[in-house]
């Protein structure tokens, strides 16, 4: 096992407002980390910095041993929390778009996942439901041969059946030499796939650890621990 993601005292300020107040964590290959916290706790900011879409105000990170910067972008696949595809695009257009951008894009895998997701290759983004758009975006992010996958709220606004399909896809994409970070506040639906959990509040990690050990130590589900941590606000 090797370390895929290591962050040290990662900070971010939006002008005077701090969004991250020193986040340090380490994620090994073959593990799935659940990053949990209420809206505005800093989850998306953290993921965007690691994806190379925003610059940290302080601290550092590395991906598979490479210091954070433009070179880590090719190691990281990021699923944003909103649709980033043009409405006129069909599934196939979107696949072509990604294949042009990313050298590690696996077209065969994308087509395979498209049929697993029950998406019509010639359907346009414009006519898709929210859940279908989410599944298409997930297909695209997961079709790269990246070392680190960052999924920002992959279950938001998606019905329970599509949620199950997304959870299965996350397990199918799992490999021993990559790692996955899933940010969510729908803890109940995905906690069974997490190895590690980190709860983040106002830009700081307030609780982190191995999911099974937390269940054992507290005799509670991760969902319940989440509610205990954040319930009083």
């Amino acid at each position, binding site marked *: 096992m090797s370390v895929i993601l290591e962050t040290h005292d990662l900070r971010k300020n939006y002008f005077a407002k701090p969004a991250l107040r020193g986040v340090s964590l380490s994620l090994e290959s*073959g*593990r*799935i980390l659940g990053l949990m916290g209420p809206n505005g706790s800093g989850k998306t900011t953290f993921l965007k910095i690691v994806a190379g879409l925003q610059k940290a105000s302080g601290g550092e990170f590395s991906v598979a041993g490479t210091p954070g910067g433009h070179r880590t972008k090719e190691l990281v696949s990021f699923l944003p929390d909103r649709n980033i595809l043009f409405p006129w695009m069909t599934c196939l257009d979107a696949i072509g778009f990604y294949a042009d951008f990313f050298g590690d894009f696996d077209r065969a895998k994308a087509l395979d996942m498209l049929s697993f997701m029950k998406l019509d290759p010639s359907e346009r983004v414009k006519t898709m439901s929210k859940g279908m758009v989410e599944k298409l975006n997930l297909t695209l992010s997961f079709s790269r041969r990246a070392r680190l996958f960052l999924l920002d709220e992959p279950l938001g606004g998606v019905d329970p059946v599509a949620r*199950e399909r997304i*959870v*299965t896809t996350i*397990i*199918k994409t*799992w490999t021993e030499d990559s790692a996955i970070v899933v940010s969510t506040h729908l803890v*109940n639906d995905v*906690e*069974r*796939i*997490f*190895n590690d959990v980190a709860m983040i509040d106002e830009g700081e990690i307030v609780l982190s650890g191995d999911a*099974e050990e937390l*269940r*054992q130590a507290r*005799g*509670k*589900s*991760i*969902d*319940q621990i989440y509610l205990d941590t954040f319930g009083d606000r």
Partner: protein
Amino acid sequence: MYEFDPNIPIYLQIVNGIKREIVSGARQPGDRLPSVREQAESLAVNPNTVQRAYQELEREGVCDTRRGTGSYISERDGLITALRDEMARALRRAYAEGMRALGFTDEEILSALRAELDGGRAT
């Protein structure tokens, strides 16, 4: 999706599920267990969790791992009897603890159990 109790470590629930399948005859000694990946996909859990469950089964002597080919249910003598005894003990303990917590005396527990076995007519 397979239902787990989220309050209990998932790997333990997988371990107990496989033991139950062995005792009930759904899995036979010598059978190969599904690969870690297959099992993870069908249960919709993390592959590391399945791996951990298989390691636990191996540590308890319920399974043997043969290099490169997977995990097999042990063919040693007395495995099924031992698993049955272990599960029965856990059920008995849970029943006794639950009844004592309700304030039943040992005598009352025994007579309640007898009544239940006789068809649950009286308590």
